[in-house]
């Protein structure tokens, strides 16, 4: 097991990703717009308000709303999880840049599209886990998180299959997501001690 990540490393990492992608971070609890979104999701019966505010990091455009203070671990958001979610959310920024307005519209209106966008961002979770621990992360539990996003069971199955295939590529050295590439560029240079020991050739 490689060394623990330090709070100042997490802060520097987030700063790197924000500069690379032109994003800003907002504390979710302080954001009026997130309170409104939480209320709407609660009324629609999609997601409990408190759960949305405390358990989910959310990206709108280039703003990332976090339920934690970057660099300060709290329940459910240890320091490594803060790194991983940073990469995941920045892949949503990549999607926003790549797809334009159709990303936001499809994400809200189309459950299959929502599952597809989230599955793509979850590939970053797989990639970061492999870099850090040297073993593939189980992909099925990630796909099942999509049940919380109002996705249909058949969408979850497609996501699970796509993530299983992604894992096959990742263990062969593929970097699938742009946000992961940006993350690994920083980590390889500034925190190489966090990387899993490479097997001897």
């Amino acid at each position: 097991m490689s060394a623990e990540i330090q709070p100042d490393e997490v802060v520097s990492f987030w700063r790197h990703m924000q500069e690379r992608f032109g994003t800003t971070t907002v504390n979710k609890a302080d954001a009026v717009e997130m309170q409104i979104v939480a209320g709407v999701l609660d009324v629609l019966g999609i997601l409990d308000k408190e759960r949305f505010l405390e358990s989910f990091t959310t990206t709108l455009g280039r703003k990332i709303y976090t339920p934690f203070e970057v660099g300060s671990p709290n329940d459910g958001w240890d320091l490594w999880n803060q790194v991983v979610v940073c990469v995941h959310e920045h892949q949503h920024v990549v999607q926003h840049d790549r797809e334009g307005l159709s990303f936001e519209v499809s994400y809200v209106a189309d459950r299959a599209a929502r599952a597809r966008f989230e599955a793509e961002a979850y590939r970053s979770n797989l990639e970061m886990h492999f870099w850090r621990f040297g073993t593939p992360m189980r992909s099925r539990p990630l796909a099942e998180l999509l049940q919380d996003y109002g996705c249909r069971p058949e969408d979850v199955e497609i996501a699970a299959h796509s993530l299983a295939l992604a894992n096959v590529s990742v263990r062969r050295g593929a970097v699938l997501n742009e946000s992961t590439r940006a993350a690994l560029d920083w980590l390889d240079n500034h925190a190489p001690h966090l990387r899993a020991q490479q097997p001897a050739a």
Partner: protein
Amino acid sequence: MVKLLLLGLVAVACSTACRPPDGCVPRSTRCLVNRSQICDADRYWRELSDCDRVSAQSGGPFACRYVDEETEEGRVVGHTCMPATDAGSEASR
């Protein structure tokens, strides 16, 4: 202005939702040029990965390939980006 915005939203929504399904079998995969695709639950082909971009990001050539592997989570069968040097041992389908 509002009408234009709404028209734009409808146009964006229709760009996918109003297109007839491709008719593929959900969960099936394929390679199209050097991109892997998966058939979604609504029977549309959707891109999984552009293997040319993966090559640029991974420091070596990757190609879209058919894989059939036993993993910790069970058997994984389908198309994905694999190192191009594996091409000899795993035929593309």
